[in-house]
């Protein structure tokens, strides 16, 4: 059977007509989009939701003002990377392929931000990560990469110094979750501990000084091991740690595993102080671990207590009115999105290259954490590490920490 060529072309004509009509319907006012990627499903979704709400608020604030680009409507394009590097790369490729997207805010996990940053760099697209803190990401030399938080080569040392000086830690065991973030942070912590150990010497015991008893005051690393993300049973490794009799257990990882470690350490009777990084900073941690087990846990955060920063007061009040208690990363996502909007506004055109050029002129941006500037690697120059502890089921700010 032969096809009627005339009828074929008629169908084709109709199809093109319909397609054009559909396009016209949508395209009344052209859009300019900011991509957003974080885990929105899975165990780390609470963190991702906090970030998404922060980003949405920044967009809402921008919509209340003049259009960012005359005649264009600003939109957020949120995608889910499920904290999975493979999904992160897929999301990045999707954003890069969309000509309406001119900048991206994301991702959450360093292991996702790392491979995705190469894709954004290739597409000359501005990327601002709110909170991926692994220092290696900015050392790749991508001029498209910016971040609004402190890096782990400051967070790790700050934790080590606090552990030794304020908690008096002498016997330390290190655990990490074998991700880019966890292993990186744990290595920075261990490196600083080594430096402290070399700098600290021996001292004489006062009570038995005449007998010449020498006390070793140096902190000691008893071991450094990895756990698997998504695993549930850590009793075996915790029992092993207990047998080494440490006084501090440092865990570099995220809150789902952190909560299980905090809970199970009580079950095996390990009484060492538990300390962690910013990945644990989520109220869900205390809920999952139970408040009793979480009592007295210490953790560092990439930034000071948001409630104590005067420039962030209005933002915090509005956020808590709209969404309830502010999450650990909400403010960073707001800051990153606001800066991306600023750059698009400055560029004044739906052009990735122009947005990137505009970003490079940023100086003293009036952000939530004070005047925001970036160094030549794209890392924020606002460098505060906060220390928090859990008291009666709530995070309580202790102090800002120094890393030197």
């Amino acid at each position, binding site marked *: 059977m032969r096809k009627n060529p005339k009828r074929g072309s008629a169908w084709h004509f109709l199809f093109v007509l319909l397609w054009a009509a559909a396009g016209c319907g949508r395209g009344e006012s052209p859009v300019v989009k900011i991509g957003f990627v974080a885990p929105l*499903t*899975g*165990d780390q*979704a*609470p963190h991702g939701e906090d970030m998404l709400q922060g980003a949405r608020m920044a967009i809402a604030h921008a919509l209340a003002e003049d259009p960012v680009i005359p005649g264009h409507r600003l939109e957020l394009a949120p995608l889910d990377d499920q904290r999975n590097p493979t999904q992160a790369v897929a999301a990045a490729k999707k954003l890069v392929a969309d000509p309406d997207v001119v900048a991206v805010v994301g991702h959450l996990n360093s292991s996702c931000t790392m491979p995705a940053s190469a894709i954004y760099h290739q597409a000359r697209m501005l990327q601002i990560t709110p909170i991926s803190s692994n220092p290696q990401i900015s050392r790749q030399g991508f001029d498209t990469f910016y971040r609004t938080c402190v890096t782990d080569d400051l967070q790790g040392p700050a934790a080590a110094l606090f552990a030794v000086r304020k908690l008096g830690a002498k016997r330390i065991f290190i655990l990490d979750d*074998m991700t880019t973030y966890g292993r990186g942070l744990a290595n920075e912590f261990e490196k600083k501990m080594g430096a402290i150990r070399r700098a600290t010497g021996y001292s004489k015991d006062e009570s038995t000084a005449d007998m010449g008893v020498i006390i070793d005051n140096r902190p000691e690393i008893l071991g450094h*091991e*990895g*756990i*698997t993300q*998504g*695993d*549930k*049973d*850590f*009793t*075996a*490794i915790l*029992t*092993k740690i*207990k*047998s080494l*009799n440490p006084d501090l257990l440092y865990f570099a990882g995220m809150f*789902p595993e952190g*909560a*299980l470690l905090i*809970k*199970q350490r009580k*079950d*095996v*009777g390990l009484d060492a102080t538990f300390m962690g990084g910013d990945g644990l900073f989520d109220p*869900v941690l205390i*809920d*999952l*671990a*139970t408040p009793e087990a979480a009592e007295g846990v210490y953790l560092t955060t990439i930034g000071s207590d948001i409630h104590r920063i005067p420039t962030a007061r209005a933002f915090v009040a509005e956020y808590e009115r709209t969404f309830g208690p502010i999450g650990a990363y909400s403010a960073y996502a707001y800051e990153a999105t606001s800066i991306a909007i600023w750059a698009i506004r400055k560029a004044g055109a739906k052009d990735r290259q122009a947005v990137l050029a505009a970003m490079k002129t940023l100086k003293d941006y009036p952000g939530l954490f004070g005047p925001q500037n970036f160094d030549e690697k794209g890392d924020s120059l606002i460098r505060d590490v906060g220390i928090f502890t859990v008291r009666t089921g709530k995070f309580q700010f202790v102090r800002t920490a120094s890393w030197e």
Partner: protein
Amino acid sequence: MSPLQLFLQQLANGLTLGAIYALIALGYTMVYGVVQLINFAHGEIFMVGAYLALTVALVVTGAPWWLTLTLCGLGAMALCGGLGWMIERAAYRPIRAAPRLNALITAIGMSFVLQNVVMLLYGATDRRFPALWPAIRWQWGGVTVTLTQVLVWGTAALLMVGLQWLVMRTRLGIAMRATSQDLRACALLGIPVNRIIAMTFALGSALAAVGGMLFGGYYGTINFHDGYLTGLKAFTAAVLGGIGNIPGAMVGGIVLGLLEGLGAGYLSSQWKNVFAFVILVLLLLCKPTGLLGERVADRA
């Protein structure tokens, strides 16, 4: 802690994990024994069991802990048993005569369905599992044992003995064993084969539900994708013990739990799965039918 105390403590940890694996492995092995199907949705049934126990616990409030626990256990068992029966009726029975691969693919599809239904109903994030029993700890010569662990061991042992009695001594058990030997001959002799197979699915699912409840109570958190890895481990345990063999599934579960516990405790926690699976491969190389496996060649 002396080396002996440490060893005993690691043994206790591994035994707890192993008992949970064993409870799930029983479902794999029973179903395989009767219809030669590897029911890959079984891990998901275990996860659904945990969520059902959670739901019952949230409904029943104010009762003493042992009553809540019993209600959660029985409720989850009944509901999960019903679910297992329904899955067999709706998904597996219509294709029983089809080639075995079809049923296997159906099972994988079923597991996706269950995962996504739970995700839609309960959300994608970790849920805290309420403490169903008090946190009591005992010290025996430097070894710490929690009430949780005792409950896991006790429940697992009780259910295994019960199952063994059911399979070896009751009419239903005899019919199940007969069906596993020759389905067609049983049907000719007037044994209600369809009902026996459905009962096997329901029984296996009910055991998985108990495993799910203990798992939730032991670790304190559950997630919709918890069934995948735990189910895979339990399937491994069933193969290790000799698939189709009920005491084998129990032994396999406990051996796998001990291997993981000792691997993490003495070698390295990041290599514990590698260690457990290397031992497994070596064991199966020496004894291809599993630890207590029968010769399955003449059954096909």
